[in-house]
């Protein structure tokens, strides 16, 4: 078990370094020069100033040297310096990370809990109106673009009914503390978290339903019925547990992607998280910041994959910690 984790972490670090190198070149292949953008914003267009900027930030070095310096930095957990924001990249990311984790974590929990619940209900009442209603709703949420759901949710719940705040992480300038602050953040969280959650909830509901119907046809379910177990116990203990295995796999793969999926939602709801940070870095050609966000996102995907494997092992005794 310990050696399994150690081995997986070692492999993950190699993958991460490969991703860093790939991203490094990808970003520099894109058109646009950060020095030109910065010079333009400073109001000075002359060539000398641009050259000075390049020298200052090491952008005049050959690419391999830049890469070498960058990888060396990462190995000592230094993600570099954001020239635009005049701050270390790691400080910027650490400032924004909690908000993103709160948003995606909540969205993930909502989508899993309700996705499995609705999926199980649909399977239990397969062929009835309840099943049809759940399946159709899931299909709609699955097919609707996230940003559109976000905009509609704002129009309905913030603008028309004025129930929930439409943007931000907290009420600016209110200076809430303690429980009041918690409730304030929670109120801000509901719309963006539900928006992200709906899509994934639809996926899990569809998957749980299909998987439960499939497991329901297996022999051991017949064995359970032959024991005289009630239908509710059979569905919960024998069918659902087995049906959740593919859902766990899917959820694990998607947990990492959720961070990326938050870019759009964070932008629409002005949520001060990593997604928005990435969006800003992209517009400003802030190479180091962009790379830093990429590295952190990749690390999270890898971490979620490892967690998925461990969870999978704990729910399925047939899986051994093989290489």
């Amino acid at each position, binding site marked *: 078990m310990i*050696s*399994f984790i*150690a*081995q997986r972490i*070692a492999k993950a670090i190699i993958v991460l370094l490969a991703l860093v190198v790939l991203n490094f070149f990808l970003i520099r292949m894109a058109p646009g020069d950060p020095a030109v953008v910065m010079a333009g914003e400073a109001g000075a267009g002359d060539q000398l100033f641009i050259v000075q900027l390049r020298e200052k930030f090491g952008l005049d070095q050959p690419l391999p040297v830049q890469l070498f310096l960058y990888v060396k930095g990462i190995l000592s957990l230094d993600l570099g310096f954001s020239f635009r924001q005049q701050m270390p990249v790691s400080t910027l990311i650490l400032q924004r990370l909690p908000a993103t984790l709160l948003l995606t974590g909540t969205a993930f929990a909502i989508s899993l809990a309700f996705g499995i619940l609705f999926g199980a209900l649909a399977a239990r009442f397969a062929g009835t109106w309840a099943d049809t209603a759940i399946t159709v709703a899931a299909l709609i949420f699955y097919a609707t673009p996230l940003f559109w759901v976000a905009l509609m949710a704002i129009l309905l719940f913030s603008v028309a009914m004025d129930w929930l705040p439409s943007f931000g992480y907290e009420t600016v300038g209110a200076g809430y503390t303690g429980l009041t602050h918690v409730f304030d953040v929670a109120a801000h969280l509901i719309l963006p978290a539900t928006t992200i959650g709906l899509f994934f909830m639809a996926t899990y509901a569809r998957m749980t339903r299909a998987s439960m119907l499939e497991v329901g046809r*297996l*022999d*051991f379910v*017949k*064995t*359970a*019925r*032959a*024991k*005289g*177990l*009630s239908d509710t*116990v059979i569905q919960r*203990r*024998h069918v659902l*547990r*087995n049906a959740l295995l593919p859902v766990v796999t899917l959820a694990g793969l998607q947990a990492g992607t959720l961070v990326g999926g938050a870019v759009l939602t964070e932008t629409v709801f002005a949520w001060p998280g990593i997604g928005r940070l990435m969006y800003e870095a992209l517009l400003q050609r802030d190479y180091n910041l962009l790379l830093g966000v990429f590295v952190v996102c990749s690390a999270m995907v890898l971490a979620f994959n490892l967690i998925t494997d461990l969870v999978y092992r704990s*729910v*399925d*005794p*047939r899986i051994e*910690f*093989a*290489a």
Partner: protein
Amino acid sequence: MTVAIKNLKLALPPGGDRAYAVDDVSFELSAGKILCVVGESGSGKSMCAHALMGLLPETVTPESGEIRFEGKNVLALSPTEWLALRGRDIAMVFQEPMTALNPLMRIGDQIAEMFEAHGLLTPKERRQKALALIREVGLPDPERAVRAYPHQLSGGQRQRAMIAMALALEPAVLVADEPTTALDVTTQAQILKLIRDLQRRRNMAVMFITHDFGVVAEIADRVVVLQHGKVVEQGTADDVLLRAQHPYTRALLAAVPTLQPPQRVSLLDRSKAVEVIGLGKTYVSGGGWFRSERRVQAAKEVSFDIFRGETLGLVGESGSGKSSVARLVMRLIEPDAGTVRIGDVDLTKIGGKALREQRRRIQMVFQDPFASLNPRRKVGHIITDGPIAHGVDPAAARKRAGELLSLVGLNAGAMERFPHEFSGGQRQRIGIARALALDPEILVADEAVSALDVSVQAQVLDLLEDLKARLGLSMLFITHDLRVAAQICDRIAVMQHGTIVELKSASLLFAAPEHAYTRELLSAVPGQTSSSKAA
């Protein structure tokens, strides 16, 4: 009597090939007696069992008749009444111990669930009872078995656990649906004995469903023979096995191969079609940076010859390495050591185009006629794929495919149809036609008749024998069924743990087995005394 089934009629959904799954069936189960319900696939025998358990599929409905148990007609029970009855008064053991247990639950918990389902005992007492039951059915290392998950037990052990579960509440009736079909012959003998012993000790009524007359002879007190959902014959075991009245029963009995091999001419003076020398194969799984690997030796030092026109049998239990040897001989997997010579070509030394050229000389017929034919391709394409890949003109290949289909006893019109439109036996014929399409010198048949009913099995065996004579084929015939091996093989090699422990002519092997394992296999074949009487 304990259970009386009277004029039971179970209706199938409209549009099927017949209106009733079970049509006017009557029989009785008595305490302390084993009733065998025999029939081929589709005869309705499992439906009777499921009706008795209240587990009929939703599409099958009881139309008339009744099943009386303790004075009540169980067909009229409400779902809640069924819950109380199932498991407690009538319990069931299923065919496939691999899939009939929940893979995510410990064996002990699955047994304890029987008590929980009926609200009996405290959790601690349930665990103790589970342990006691596991001891009673003879699972080795009971303390460990209680905590084991199904995949950690062998097939036979899992079936013992299933039986422990079924017996937990001391039911009056035990329904066993082909409980030994998926097991090796030696394991089957143990499980049959276990069921027999427990049934006597507890004076249970047992309804034992099987397609195997050997098993019937071994275990039955009374026998019911079903055909197309109707009872064609019933009576005591001796009456049915020795003095069968109905032509269908007689045909079924006649189709059971005997253990006496027919006299065959020795072919050892002919030239060799296949020469296998010192084949070795070890499967390695796992292994990595931090983990030691697991090795399974599937074949060690395996050597044999197949002479022209000869059928060599390869028999053994699951995991003995028979199928690995077949794949090695065909070079579907790479050997670690050894040589396979076909005529004067060393199959293990060539590769690429040369190997592909040679492949047409040795072809395979697979076990499962449902899985071995691509369901999305028409039969004509399935048969002509090989020849066309070897450069035969498509039109000529199709003409030949038509001839092959009639050779294996099918209509040439079959070419335009898909595999699912055929029965199991017909599909196996298609599989044989496919193998023959390349005009091979050698056929490798891997359990080619194991999935078939006895009557169909007999037809396919006849077909293979006939084709072999007509086309001068040599055959490597892999089977776990010694009766089948006795009928078709000239010589037989017995495999155990990846090695050949005995290799001699079929008549000699059955008359004078030398190796202890061969003797054990032979004595485990069910129904030896009665079936030879019957035949």
